[in-house]
């Protein structure tokens, strides 16, 4: 990889009270890459994505985006730089309609391109088009995941953070979600940082990958390289 990274973490440490969840994490995500982060449950993957968004903030080390230090910025201000996240557990606004959830997604950029962007996310996830007036809480798990990604896309992000988008979904839905991630990257050059516990799909799709264990990066390499690695296979791809 050449040129400055879009996102760079350097020696990031994050605590929950006295408990250290991340220690000395450094990683790069370059423009137009899909980078994946795999690791066991409790390794600190969600903490890492949330630290990028400033909640919780890193207590030492730095997070920078397009060369700018964002370690101490507030979450809502970070989104305005072009970072969007579909978080763990999807966090759909259950009592709002699908359309309202999507409109909330436009908050960082305003509503100048709403129609165009709605058309784009409905092309990716046609099922959402039929559900616009339905409350978020009434959607199936797969639909909620699609909505969470679509909501993130409504802010026209330069960097899309996805936290376990396949968790708990039927195989056919998982396949569709991973297809969309690939399409976004290929067709729009979208930069994607993908966290997955279920590593097979993610490694196959990613240009590069990191392995997180107990809050530390223990391995990094090309996606296919890690997919073939014995240690990765035994630890994270058991049964796959």
């Amino acid at each position, binding site marked *: 990889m050449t040129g400055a990274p879009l996102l760079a973490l350097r020696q990031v440490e994050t605590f929950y009270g006295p408990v250290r969840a991340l220690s000395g994490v450094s990683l790069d995500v370059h423009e137009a890459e899909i980078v994946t982060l795999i690791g066991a449950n409790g390794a600190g993957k969600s903490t890492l994505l949330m630290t990028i*968004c400033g*909640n919780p903030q890193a207590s030492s080390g730095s997070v920078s985006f397009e060369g700018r230090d964002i370690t101490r910025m*507030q*979450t*809502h201000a970070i*989104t*305005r730089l072009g970072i*969007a*996240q579909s*978080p763990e557990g999807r*966090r759909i*606004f*259950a*009592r*709002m309609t699908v359309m*309202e959830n999507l*409109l*909330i*997604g436009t*908050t*960082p950029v305003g*509503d100048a391109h709403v129609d165009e962007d709605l058309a784009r996310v409905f092309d990716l996830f046609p099922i959402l088009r039929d559900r616009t007036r339905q409350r978020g*809480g009434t959607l199936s798990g797969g639909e909620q995941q699609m909505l969470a990604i679509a*909501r993130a896309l409504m*802010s026209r992000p330069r960097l899309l953070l996805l936290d376990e988008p396949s968790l708990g979904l039927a195989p056919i839905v998982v396949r569709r979600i991973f297809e969309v991630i690939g399409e976004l990257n290929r067709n729009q050059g979208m930069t994607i940082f993908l966290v997955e516990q279920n590593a097979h799909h993610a490694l196959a799709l990613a240009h590069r990958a990191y392995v997180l264990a107990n809050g530390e990066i223990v391995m990094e390499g090309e996606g296919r390289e890690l997919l073939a690695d014995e240690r990765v296979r035994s630890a994270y791809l058991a049964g796959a």
Partner: protein
Amino acid sequence: MAYFLQQLINGLTLGAVYGLIAIGYTMVYGIIGMINFAHGEIYMIGAFICMIAFAVLGFMGIASVPMALLVVLLLAIILTAAYGWTVERIAYRPLRGSFRLAPLISAIGMSIFLQNYVQLLQGARVKAMEPVISGGFVLMRDGSFQVTLSYLQLMIMSVTVVLMAGFTTVIHRTPLGRAQRACEQDQKMAALSGIDVDRTISLTFVLGAGLAAVAGVMNTLYYGVIDFFIGFLVGLKAFTAAVLGGIGSLPGAMLGGLMIGLIEAFWAAYFDAAYKDVAAFSVLVLVLIFRPSGLLGRPKVEKV
């Protein structure tokens, strides 16, 4: 029948004002999950600004009533909203994330402070004001009893209806309202979506205080007397209204307000006026026994 109709008019007028104040309780509860115990005092501040502003306008010789009314309303809304903003900044924001009772205690402190502050600046005596709007329509005559709808009552009801309709539209149709509801449901996700949660919470206090200011102006015009302590009972009743309707629910606050106003008016008319407040609170107790989440409130346990 005529007597009944008159009580209905009186009750709706009272209820409109309670409803306006109840919205402030319910919105703040919705977004930070806590009761703003200083909200009654915010209403009281609105009433004092109204009284002072009319005195100043009178002194300046402004004779046009609609003009004066408009100026007073705007002034009361803006200044009272500033107090609402300050209450959040001082009593709530610094304590966010601390133990649950802390902000309640600081809000009660704020409420006591505001009472004393007004008492010091304005004195403890009851202040009275000449009626600004008098007259009305006689709707019906029944022997010597006549049913009147005063211009002031008509104004109170129409301003309330307009404000409530406008407010409902803001909450349901505008980006600000969406941000407000998003913060109510999930502040972490709201922030991840680009919403400035702190600003939205501030705005909620400001909007609630603005409505309380209107209520303060209306009641000052209606009763003509105020003192530094009026926020207590009116605040308590508006709070009761919010709980009765379902705390956190906007239509609930409006419905609860109307019910409390009607109960009070009818009880005073048909039973013993001395017990009208007891009647209102008793209805609250009954509703809470049979519907703990209030008339229009969401049940506590939500399907995830």
